[in-house]
């Protein structure tokens, strides 16, 4: 049997080398939502748009920023960022990229139905200085503007007008041309897109970054495979070169197969538990008039009762990075000091509960998704006996993601006492996590995902300051202080950043690593 597989793989490699074009066939668990740059704000869809469209600024593998369409930029004053555009860049149809296209793209990103407007929310206008120089004017000082520009894809004005797609439409309206077609200036061009089936790209020979490009993929076929077992089988049989995510139980199996292996790397998302610190009476303690989670000692007791090392070892099979921080390393504002985790201490936990007046615990329901994060339900299942040892009776309520997010979110009025959530700051800046998870004074703009309604006046104040602080040093100090206060308040229980696992064939070069965003930037992939 093995010899057949060997013969088949030999035959394949012969075909590959004789054609001398590097074709990457890769797969993940769900299809892209669409190609329209101004909607479908979702990781894998955004990554595919990034293969097709250029932005003003490019985000590198290590999350740092480098020039893309803009070759240099300078902050003229707190509200004005001047950028110089790269000369002689062409869209895939051959028309030149000009300042007018950037202005057009901004209007489209800011349109009513755009989903990407948060990336350019503070940009009031783009001033055209000449064809290759522009100024981004913001409503006030915006220290994270540059961090957001990699998601601001530049679209051609003339082409959009010709194809009648200047309006951003979604949902019930007619399908838009731009969701299935593209005309970017990025490193790859679209050849074919069949929803749920395949998306085929070829390299853009005229891309400005051709010389600087790390990868060597000439043609890429993206084929989603929803079923994890089939995805693994397709990799093992050599039908695809790269796939993610690899289910934890299959990692060993893939590593034992000749010609295939698993690459692991850290992901940016932080998974955590949160508590209701808002209601005067806990949902699970009707009639008592008490909400134990308003007491910091109870939150600390919960925190110290969770044995994160056991979760790391047993549930995550060493595939996670236990953390004390609400954001991952690499996110701007991440602090190693905040990341230090208060140790697991069952005795201290029991003592704290007794001090707080709950020596024999209290009933509480843990709301948990079962199809969103790696081993989400299993983590919650592990937490139940851990908390039971400290004396807390936890009832687990694990359900599908759409129901879970409805229940704990604003849709059902944050109808939860104790819940699991995961978060990746979309701006790669800790301010985003503070605004979404740890503040609520400016609700509904702030705290939409602060489902436990945690709030501390000083954290609110620091978050507000950091929003417009243009001095990077001062800003980082403010962000660190805010995170430290939240940590000492035991506002949430951060658990870990899960590990990414990419399954690859030996057709992939050795220097390829998974991106922390867990998606494929084709310019970063090399093949043997």
């Amino acid at each position, binding site marked *: *049997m093995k010899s*057949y*597989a060997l*013969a088949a793989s030999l035959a394949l490699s012969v075909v590959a080398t004789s054609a001398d074009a590097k074709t990457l066939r890769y797969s993940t668990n*769900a299809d892209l*939502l*669409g190609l329209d740059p101004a909607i479908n*704000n*979702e990781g894998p869809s955004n990554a595919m748009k990034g293969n097709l469209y250029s932005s003003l600024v490019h985000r590198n593998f290590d999350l740092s920023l480098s020039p893309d369409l803009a070759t240099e930029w300078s902050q003229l004053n707190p509200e004005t960022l001047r950028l110089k555009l790269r000369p002689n860049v062409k869209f895939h149809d051959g028309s030149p990229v000009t300042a007018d296209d950037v202005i057009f793209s901004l209007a489209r990103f800011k349109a*009513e*139905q755009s*989903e990407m407007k*948060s990336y350019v929310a503070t940009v009031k206008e783009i001033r055209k200085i000449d064809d290759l120089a522009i100024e981004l004017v913001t409503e006030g000082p915006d220290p994270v503007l540059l961090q957001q520009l990699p998601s601001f894809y530049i679209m051609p004005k003339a082409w959009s007008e010709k194809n009648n797609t200047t309006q951003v439409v*979604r*949902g*019930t*309206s*007619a*399908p*838009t041309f731009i*969701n*299935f077609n593209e005309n970017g200036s990025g490193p790859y061009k679209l050849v074919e897109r*069949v*929803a*749920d*089936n*395949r998306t085929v790209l070829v390299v853009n020979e005229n891309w400005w970054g051709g010389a600087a490009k790390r990868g060597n993929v000439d043609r890429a076929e993206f*084929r*989603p*495979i*929803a*079923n994890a*077992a*089939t*995805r693994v*089988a*397709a990799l*093992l*049989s*050599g*039908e695809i070169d790269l796939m993610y995510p690899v289910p934890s139980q299959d990692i060993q199996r893939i590593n034992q197969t000749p010609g295939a292996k698993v690459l692991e790397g850290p992901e940016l998302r932080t998974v955590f538990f949160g508590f209701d610190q808002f209601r005067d009476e806990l949902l699970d303690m009707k009639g008592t008039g008490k909400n134990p989670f308003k007491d910091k000692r109870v939150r600390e007791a919960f925190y110290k009762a969770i044995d994160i090392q056991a979760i790391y070892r047993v549930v995550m099979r060493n595939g996670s990075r236990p953390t004390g921080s609400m954001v991952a390393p690499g996110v701007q504002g991440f602090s190693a000091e905040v990341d230090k985790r208060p140790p697991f201490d069952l005795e201290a936990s029991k003592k704290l509960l007794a001090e707080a007046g709950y020596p024999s615990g209290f009933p509480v329901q843990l709301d948990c998704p079962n199809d969103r994060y790696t081993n989400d339900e299993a983590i919650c299942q592990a937490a139940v006996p851990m908390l039971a040892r400290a004396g807390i009776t936890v009832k687990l309520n694990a359900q*599908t*993601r*759409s*129901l*879970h*997010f*409805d229940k704990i*979110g*604003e*849709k059902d009025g944050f109808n939860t006492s104790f819940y699991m959530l995961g*978060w990746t700051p*979309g701006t790669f800046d800790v301010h*985003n996590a503070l*605004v*979404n998870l740890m503040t609520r004074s400016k609700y*509904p*703009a702030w705290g*939409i*995902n602060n489902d436990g309604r945690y709030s501390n006046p000083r954290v609110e104040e620091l978050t507000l300051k950091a929003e417009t602080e243009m001095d990077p040093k001062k800003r980082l100090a403010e962000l660190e202080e805010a995170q430290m206060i939240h940590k000492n308040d035991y506002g949430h229980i951060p658990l870990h950043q899960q590990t990414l696992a990419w399954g690859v064939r030996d057709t992939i070069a050795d220097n390829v690593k998974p991106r922390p965003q867990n998606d494929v930037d084709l310019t970063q992939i090399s093949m043997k």
Partner: protein
Amino acid sequence: MLAFIIRRLLQSTLVMLAVAFVAFALFTYMGDPVNSMVAPDATLEERQRLRHLLGLDQPFYVQFLVFLGNELTGNFGNSFRIGAPVASIIAERLPATLELVFVAAMFALFVGVPCGVYTGLHRHGAVSRVMLTLSLVGVSLPTFLIGILLILFFSVFLGWLPSFGRGQVVSLGWWSTGFLTKSGLRSLILPSITLGLFQTTLFMRLVRAEMLEVLRTDYIKFARARGLSDRAVNFGHALKNTLVPVITIAGLQIGGLIAFAIITETVFQWPGMGLLFISAIQFVDVPVMSSYLVLVALFFVIINLVVDLLYYVVDPRLRIDRPATAH
């Protein structure tokens, strides 16, 4: 006959309405579609605007009536996930499912019925015993496990057949077919065996049981006494009379094949309607889910009608219109 058809059509309409209502009522328990459509840090205002745009802020009965009205005028709405009209998405996926179901059904009929006849006629033969034992496997293993085992064996170990997808397809007008390319045909083998295996064993056991039953009856004994050949007795008399229940079951099973193609399509990433439905559930894509369920109900209704009409062809007794129903 005409009255019969009209009566069946009226009943069918009621069935369809009931299915539409139950399906639609279930969707209110599925969570908010807007969650999967916007970024997690979208503002309340953005979410509300989208809800309003999609009509999700309307009361349940209004949403249902709008849906019914649309459905009756042939407007199935737009998929929340793909952003294209549901009618065109389903039209695009339908060929994949129907081809898969067709091959699976042919496999089930042309393997299952002959095996059933054989095991019925040679009930004590060694080959019959092997067949019957194997058929137990087909009945008892769940579809996804059979699929995964086939993939493991034929794709991973042997490397003979593709583990996923539909291969190259050729477009004939709006119908895209996998029958005309080598990779398309190769891709059909594993999923159609997976999908049809249960029906194959079912047909085999059904035909066998019916054959044994019929072979015991007096008219077979008389036929033999008249000196007819084995061939004429077994196939002309016995087999023909076993076919009435087989047609009933076969009809229902073809409906079942379409409905249960969901599991096979998910395992093999077969780009048909079942896969579309599963993705729709994960995304809470209500227009796709409701249209799919109504369509599958329609298939069942049509198949049942065809089965009833086939009785007329096979069973001469039904062709005599009884006075009680003929006026």
